Every structure is written in structure tokens, then in C-alpha cells.
């Protein structure tokens, strides 16, 4: 059923919290996502011409890199983008077949690939580009929040987190219940000012992004005398100490 389940206070809302301050843009989360999911719930995540001139394929997680601001105070920010498991997911309500659904018990948005007709309307309805069409199988694929890991009793309890979270070397990805204000992820969001992407679209994403931490502002023009102090290593030491 593609109607959204009625939500009650304190309802479980599993999701991710992504720390843009610590993400180093290594793409390990995207690669491990592909690795796990090509043999997981949505297996296979097909590729087209993988060893040819223009390789393409289905990925459920993509890492962008941006620059924000100009001058010495600008920031380079690496930005992983995946399904946000929205509270108002239009990708679910537009689905004509009932293949796309949001689970009442934990809020995870999934696709039943057995009945998906591959009309692609859900991908049009998602502002975030979370859904990718599998041309080979003719159905839509998306992030499952690794339902085949987080509830999997055959793997050690510490590993029952999404593949992207388990692999992140910078600990920039956190997984938990964002419907519980006392959970570690909810506290992290409150403490760091976690925010929604494109709140104006009204989709109410469950996943939150933590902004880069503020740094002391740097003067727009570098001091002129710094240029005259030494050469080579001495110049470098001088510049570090002059900060």
C-alpha cells in the first residue's frame, strides 16, 4: 500500500546522521554500499559496460564534493548523498502499484521489486535523487538502510549497522533511531545543529546532516611580512607559527 502509515509520537524512525565536518570524501561508504548491496536485498546492483569506455551502474550512495564561500574562509566539504527515508516520501505515494512503501515499524522506505513495473515516477518524485533505475532488471533500486544487516542475527551485534556506517574510516556516519529524542544520534543532532536537506520541499527527511564546525575567521588578506621570512622549510615553519 503506497499510503504513508500514520505516525505516532515516539515512533521508531531509523536513519543516518552524516557529519560533514569529519567526512574526508574517500568514497569508502559508497563502495562498501555497492559491495554489500550487490549481493544483498536488492541484488544484483547491475553495471553496464563496466570495463568499457563509459562504465555506468546502479549505486545507492554517491559522494559529492563542494566548495562553500570564497577566500581564506571558504570550506571544502565532502557530501555523501543517499536515501533520507523521509517522513513524507512522495516517492511512495506516487507509486501506482504499491511496490514502493514505507515500513510502519521503523520508517524504512523500500521497493518490492517483485511487483515494481519500472515506471520511474518515484525517481521523478524524489528531490534528492535517491532512487536509481536498474536498466538490466527493469526495476527501481534504492538504499534499504541495510535491512539485511541491521536485523541480521547471523552477524556479530557490533556489525548490525548499515554497510556505509561500518566502513567509514572517519566515523562521519552514525546510525540510530531518530524518533527517540534520547538516542545517541538524536543527541548528536541536537548538540551539533543537525539539519534537513531542502526543507522547503516538505518531505521531512529522517536523515540529518551535521554542518562543518565553525573555525576562527581568517583575515581576508594575508600579512605582507609573512612573505619575506625565509625560504623552504623555514618559510613553512614561519607560516605555521604565524597563524
Amino acid at each position, binding site marked *: *500500500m503506497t499510503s504513508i502509515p500514520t505516525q505516532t509520537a515516539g515512533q521508531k524512525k531509523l536513519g543516518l546522521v552524516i557529519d560533514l565536518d569529519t567526512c574526508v570524501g574517500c568514497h569508502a561508504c559508497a563502495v562498501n554500499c555497492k559491495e554489500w548491496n550487490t549481493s544483498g536485498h536488492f541484488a544484483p546492483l547491475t553495471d553496464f559496460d563496466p570495463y568499457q569506455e563509459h562504465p555506468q*551502474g546502479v*549505486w545507492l550512495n554517491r559522494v559529492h564534493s*563542494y566548495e*562553500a564561500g570564497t577566500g581564506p574562509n571558504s570550506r571544502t566539504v565532502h557530501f555523501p548523498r543517499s536515501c533520507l527515508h523521509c517522513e513524507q516520501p512522495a516517492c511512495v505515494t506516487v507509486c501506482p502499484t504499491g511496490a514502493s512503501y514505507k515500513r510502519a515499524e521503523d520508517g524504512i522506505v523500500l521497493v518490492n521489486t517483485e511487483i515494481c513495473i519500472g515506471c520511474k515516477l518515484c525517481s*521523478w518524485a524524489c528531490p534528492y535523487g535517491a532512487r*536509481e533505475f536498474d536498466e538490466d532488471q527493469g526495476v527501481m533500486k534504492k538504499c534499504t538502510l541495510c535491512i539485511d544487516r541491521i536485523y541480521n542475527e547471523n552477524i556479530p551485534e557490533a556489525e548490525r549497522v548499515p554497510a556505509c556506517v561500518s566502513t567509514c574510516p572517519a566515523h562521519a556516519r552514525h546510525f540510530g533511531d531518530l524518533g527517540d529524542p534520547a538516542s545517541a544520534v538524536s543527541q548528536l543532532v541536537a548538540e551539533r545543529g543537525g539539519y534537513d536537506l531542502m526543507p*522547503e520541499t516538505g518531505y521531512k527527511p529522517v536523515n540529518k546532516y551535521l554542518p*562543518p564546525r565553525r573555525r576562527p575567521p581568517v583575515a581576508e588578506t594575508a600579512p605582507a611580512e609573512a612573505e619575506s621570512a625565509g625560504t623552504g622549510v623555514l618559510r613553512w615553519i614561519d607560516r605555521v607559527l604565524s597563524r
Partner: protein
Amino acid sequence: MNPAFSVILLTTASGAGYGMLFWLGILDAAGVMPPNLSFGIPAIFIALALASIGLLASTLHLGHPERAWRAISQWRSSWLSREGVVSLFTYLPALAFAAAWGIAGPHAVVTMVAGVVAALCGMLTVFCQAMIYASLPPVRQWHNRFVPPNLVLLSLASGAACLAAMVTFWLSGAGRIMAAVAFVLGLGCIAAKIAYWRWMDREPSSSTIESATGLGTIGAVRQLEAPHIEENFLLREMGFRIGRKHGDRLRGIAIGVGFVVPAILLIVGIILGNPAATVLFPIAAAMTLVGVYVERWLFFAQATHTVTLYYGRAV
């Protein structure tokens, strides 16, 4: 948005078909249609054939066409599902309309009632089609108050032009009223499209790369590196860009070929009558269909999706 042939054919062909069915039903109930037994049944079947071509074309872009029947199940939430339900239901009153026309006669009460029901169901299908687009917040060129009336108006105009051609060709001479309807609606389409395009060009996007990334508090945001060097599904489906290059010229072609020249042909045909109208009205109808096709191509090609913000593109 990628202007897929199958989806454009869906709305242009079925729009013309349901528009034709609408005017057949309404004008028959109004007593304007010629009481000709041999005309109604082929006319209704041509209207249904156009609608069916569109509906069948839409299954071409499905990943699993054999599962298409599942699409009628989610009418509670999905406009696409509602379109499926209403379009399939429309065959019942439309076939009853054709049967009653042949058995009870064109102006029998049962024929008129079936005709009006078929007319309204057909237009409801077109409205549902329009709402599929109008209910998508990520595409600002679709998610607005102009889209449903635009698609309904173009359906009514192209249907009227087709019916005028058919009436004149088949009955040689009774098509003046239809041609007048098509003429007025054609002018309405010109005004509606210009109003829509003016709005579309002026209205800024409420989403920006800053709101998409949430990094606007630091400063203006620009893409440093894309996640992948090749295209992907998102960019192929949602990042179509060719339309913007020739946009203004194609808008002129859509309006000129689709409505301005046909309006002139229709008015000349109305004045001259037959045999000139027998030639002019079919040309006007064919040109209207071509113009609507170009218009619908632009409707897709000039629509932008918020996902492209993440790739550093404007919407």
C-alpha cells in the same frame, strides 16, 4: 527531464483522443452533431484508437510492461494509478455511446447520456495525467497551477481540430461549428502557453544548491568534484539539457505550427465552406497534433529537477 517518445506520445495522442470523445459526447447531447448513423461509430472508434495508442505507448517505457495491470491498484494515493483506473473505465461509457448511437440513434436519450458520461470520463483521464506532473514538487515547471488547465485545454483544442476535420471529411459540410470551437480553443491555447512560459521564465526556484546541501551558511556553494565521471541514470533521466539551447525557437514552432496557422486555416475554411474546408480542416488538425507534440517535448525538455542541483546545475 528526459523527453521520452513513449511518454510524449501518451499525453499527445490520448489527449487528442479524449478531446475528440469529449466534443462528440457534448455536441451530440447539445443536438449539434449531425444525426448521421454512419458517422458516430467510426468517429468514436477513432477517438478511442487515439487514446489507446497513447495508453499503449506509455507501457513502452516501463521496465516490466507485463506487470502494467498492477498500476490500477493504488488509486488512493497515486495520480498515475487514478489515470489508469479512469482511462480503463472510460471504455465502458464510450463503447456504450457507440452502441447506443448505432442502435437507438444519435439523438436518443440513452445515447446522449452515455456520450456525456464518456466525455466527462475522458476529460477526467486527461486531468489525472496532468496531475501526475503537477504533483511532483522537485520539478518546479510542472508543480504549479498552470499545468492542469494547460494540458486539459490542449487536449480539448487538439480533439476539436481532429473532430472538425473528420466531420467535414466524412459528412462534407457539417464541420463549421466544430471548426469554430477548434478556432476559439486554439486561441485559448496560445494565451495559456504564453502565460505558462512567462511564469516559468520569471519564477525563481525555491530550491538552490545552498538549500540542497545546507552549506549556504558558509557562503555560496559550487561543485568541486562530481561523484562519478560518467553519466548515470539520474543525469540521463533528470538532467536532459538539449531543450534549453533551442527553447525559444521551439516555443515559436509549437505556437505557430500548432495554433496560429491552424487558426488561419480554420477561419478560411469556415468562410469558404466546402470543398476548401475538406482540405483545410484536415491540414489544420494534422498541424495541431504536430504543434502539441513539440509543445509536449518542450514540457519535458525545459523541465528541471532538483537532483541536478547536487551536480552543480541550475534549476
